C-alpha cells in the first residue's frame, strides 16, 4: 500500500463522519501530522453520507443540516490532513499500531495518538422474520436515498421509533418515494416519563424541526400508534407485515419493504478490541466506552469521539471530535491548545442539551430488544432466542461461553448485530444485569481479512502478533 505518505503519524483518526472530520481538521491545522481513515467511498459518515457525490443536488431535498457538512469538510480539506477512503481498520493495539487494509493490501502504521470515531449503528431490531429479504434498517433506506437517489417505490411499511424514523419518512415522501404505513412502537406513557426533562429540549433547534417533521409525515402516512408486536412474513421474500397494538388491535399489510429503526447505539467493536473499558448505559441501553473529560479511553493515547462515545448527534459529535484532537495535541506537548480546548468544551456542553428528553422518550420497549420464541438473534450463524435460552438453562453464563455452545457472534459481522441482544437476553434469562453478563470479548482483526492481505503484512514480530493470536 504505497498510497500513504508515511508509516508514522502524530494522530490517526478512524472514521470520517462529523467527529472524525472535526478531529482530523483541528489536529492537522494545529500542525500535527494527521491521517484520517474511512471505510466508505467518500467522507461524511452516516449523517453526511454522499456529501461529495449525492445525486440529490436540489438543496431542499436533504435540508440545511446535510449541507452544513460541506463547511466542516472544507476545513478538513484546507487543514493538510491526509485522508484515505475505502480503508478498513482491522486492528488497533495498545502500542498504538493501526492495522489498515486498503485496495486488497494490508499495512501497519504507528500513531502517537488515536481518535476512534466509528460512530453509531442501528440498534438490533430482532422481530420474527427480520432476516427475510425486503426487511432492512431505516438507515439502509437513508443510505440508498442520500448516496444513490433511490427511494422505495413498492408498498412499504416503516416501523419503530425515534427522530430518525420521522426524518427519513419525511425525506422519502418529499422525494416522491412511497411509505404506506408507519408502525410507531413508542410505548404508552413514554411521553409522560420524558416530560420532566422536556425543558432542555424545548430550548434546542431540534424541537421546532421535530414538530415540522411530525406534521409532514402525519399528513401523508397512515400511522398506527403503540404497536407492541411486529412480524415480517413471507416465503423467501417479505410478503406482508403483521402487527398488534397495545389496545389489542391487529392489522396487516401486503408489502415488499419493511424498514426498521429503534434508535442508534455506539458501534463499539473497534474501541472494545483495543481493551478499552466499556460500561453499560442504563438510559441509552447500550455499551459506551469509559472516557475522561477529554474523551480518552482507559488505554492511554486512544480517544473516542462522536456517537461511538455515546449517542449525541451531529453537534455533539463535532464538539467531541475537536475536544479529543485538542487534548491529544496537548498531551503530545503541542502548546497553544488551551483556548481552543475550552471553546470546544463549551461547544460540547451546549450541544448536549435536550438529549435526556429524547433518550427517555425513545427508550425502546423490552419486547423489541429481547425477543421470544424462535426469533433469530444472530443473523450470521442463525441462532434463535430459544437456542440461547436453552444454553442458559444448561449453564451458559455469558456471551463468550455462549460462542462455544452456539457460535453466536462468530460469523462475519463478529457480533455487531447480535451482541446487544445476547447481553440483554442472557441478563433477563439469568435474572441479572447487563453489566454482570458483559459483552463478547473482541480481538483483532475486527474485520475479516483475506489471506492475501495477511500475506502482505511486513513480518515484524509486532505485526504478526497483532494478527495471529
Amino acid at each position, binding site marked *: 500500500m504505497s498510497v500513504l505518505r508515511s508509516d508514522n503519524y502524530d494522530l490517526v483518526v478512524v472514521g470520517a463522519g462529523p467527529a472524525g472530520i472535526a478531529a482530523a481538521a483541528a489536529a492537522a491545522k494545529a500542525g500535527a501530522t494527521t491521517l484520517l481513515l474511512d471505510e466508505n*467511498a467518500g467522507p461524511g459518515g452516516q449523517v453526511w453520507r454522499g456529501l461529495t457525490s449525492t445525486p440529490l443536488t436540489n438543496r431542499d431535498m436533504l435540508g440545511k443540516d446535510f449541507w452544513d457538512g460541506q463547511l466542516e469538510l472544507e476545513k478538513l480539506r484546507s487543514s493538510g490532513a491526509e485522508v484515505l477512503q475505502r480503508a478498513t481498520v482491522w486492528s488497533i493495539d495498545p502500542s498504538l499500531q493501526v492495522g489498515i487494509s486498503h485496495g486488497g493490501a494490508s499495512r501497519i502504521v504507528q500513531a502517537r495518538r488515536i481518535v476512534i470515531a466509528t460512530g453509531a*449503528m442501528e440498534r438490533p431490531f430482532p422481530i420474527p422474520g427480520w432476516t427475510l429479504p425486503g426487511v432492512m434498517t431505516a438507515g439502509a433506506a437513508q443510505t440508498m436515498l442520500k448516496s444513490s*437517489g*433511490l427511494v422505495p*417505490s413498492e408498498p412499504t411499511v416503516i416501523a419503530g421509533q425515534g427522530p430518525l424514523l420521522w426524518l427519513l419518512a419525511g425525506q422519502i415522501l418529499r422525494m416522491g418515494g412511497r411509505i404506506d404505513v408507519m408502525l410507531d412502537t413508542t410505548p404508552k406513557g413514554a411521553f409522560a416519563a420524558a416530560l420532566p426533562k422536556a425543558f432542555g429540549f424545548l430550548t434546542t433547534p431540534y424541537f421546532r424541526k421535530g414538530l415540522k417533521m411530525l406534521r409532514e409525515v402525519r399528513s401523508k402516512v397512515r400511522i398506527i400508534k403503540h404497536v407492541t408486536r411486529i412480524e415480517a412474513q413471507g416465503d423467501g421474500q417479505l410478503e406482508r407485515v403483521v402487527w398488534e397494538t397495545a389496545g389489542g388491535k391487529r392489522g396487516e399489510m401486503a408489502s415488499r419493504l419493511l424498514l426498521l429503526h429503534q434508535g442508534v447505539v455506539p458501534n463499539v467493536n473497534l474501541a472494545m478490541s483495543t481493551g478499552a473499558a466499556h460500561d453499560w448505559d442504563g438510559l441509552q441501553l447500550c455499551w459506551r466506552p469509559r472516557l475522561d473529560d477529554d474523551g480518552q479511553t482507559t488505554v492511554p493515547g486512544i480517544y473516542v469521539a462522536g456517537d461511538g462515545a455515546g449517542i449525541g448527534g451531529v453537534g455533539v459529535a463535532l464538539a467531541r471530535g475537536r475536544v479529543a484532537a485538542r487534548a491529544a495535541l496537548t498531551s503530545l506537548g503541542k502548546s497553544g491548545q488551551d483556548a481552543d480546548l475550552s471553546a470546544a468544551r463549551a461547544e460540547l456542553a451546549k450541544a448536549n442539551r435536550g438529549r435526556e428528553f429524547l433518550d427517555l422518550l425513545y427508550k425502546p420497549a423490552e419486547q423489541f430488544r429481547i425477543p421470544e420464541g424462535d426469533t433469530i438473534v444472530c443473523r450470521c450463524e442463525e441462532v434463535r432466542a430459544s437456542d440461547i435460552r436453552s444454553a442458559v438453562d444448561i449453564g451458559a453464563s455469558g456471551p463468550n461461553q455462549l460462542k462455544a455452545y452456539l457460535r453466536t457472534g462468530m460469523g462475519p459481522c463478529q457480533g455487531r*448485530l447480535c451482541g446487544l441482544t445476547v447481553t440483554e437476553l442472557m441478563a433477563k434469562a439469568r435474572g441479572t444485569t447487563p453489566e454482570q453478563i458483559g459483552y463478547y470479548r473482541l480481538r483483532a482483526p475486527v474485520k475479516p481479512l483475506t489471506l492475501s492481505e495477511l500475506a502482505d503484512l511486513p513480518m515484524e514480530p509486532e505485526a504478526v502478533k497483532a494478527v495471529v493470536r
Partner: protein
Amino acid sequence: MTPMFSHIPADQRPTLEIFVDGQSVRARRGDTVSAALLASGLDVRRDSAVSGVPRLPYCMMGVCFECLVTIDGVGNRQGCLIPVAPGMRVEIQRGKRELGK
C-alpha cells in the same frame, strides 16, 4: 421482478455497465455494488451460510455483512461499501458455506 427502490428523476448521473452473474446491468456511477444490485430488478438474493435461506442487504453501512458478494473473482466482499466500476463482474453467492472458503 420490479425492484423495491427506484431512482428519483433528479438523478442524472451517467451510467456504466457491470455484469451480474454474466448479465449486463446498467448502474449509476457512484452507486455501491449493493445499491446497483437492489435497483437492477434482478433476483440478487444470496444464500445464507448456515441454512442456505435467501438474504438481501440489511444495513447498507458495513455492519451486518448481509451484502456479501463475489466481485471480480474475490468472494465475501461487502457490496455495500464498494462502488461500481465499469466492467465489474459481480456474482451472487449461492449455496451454503463450504468448508475452507
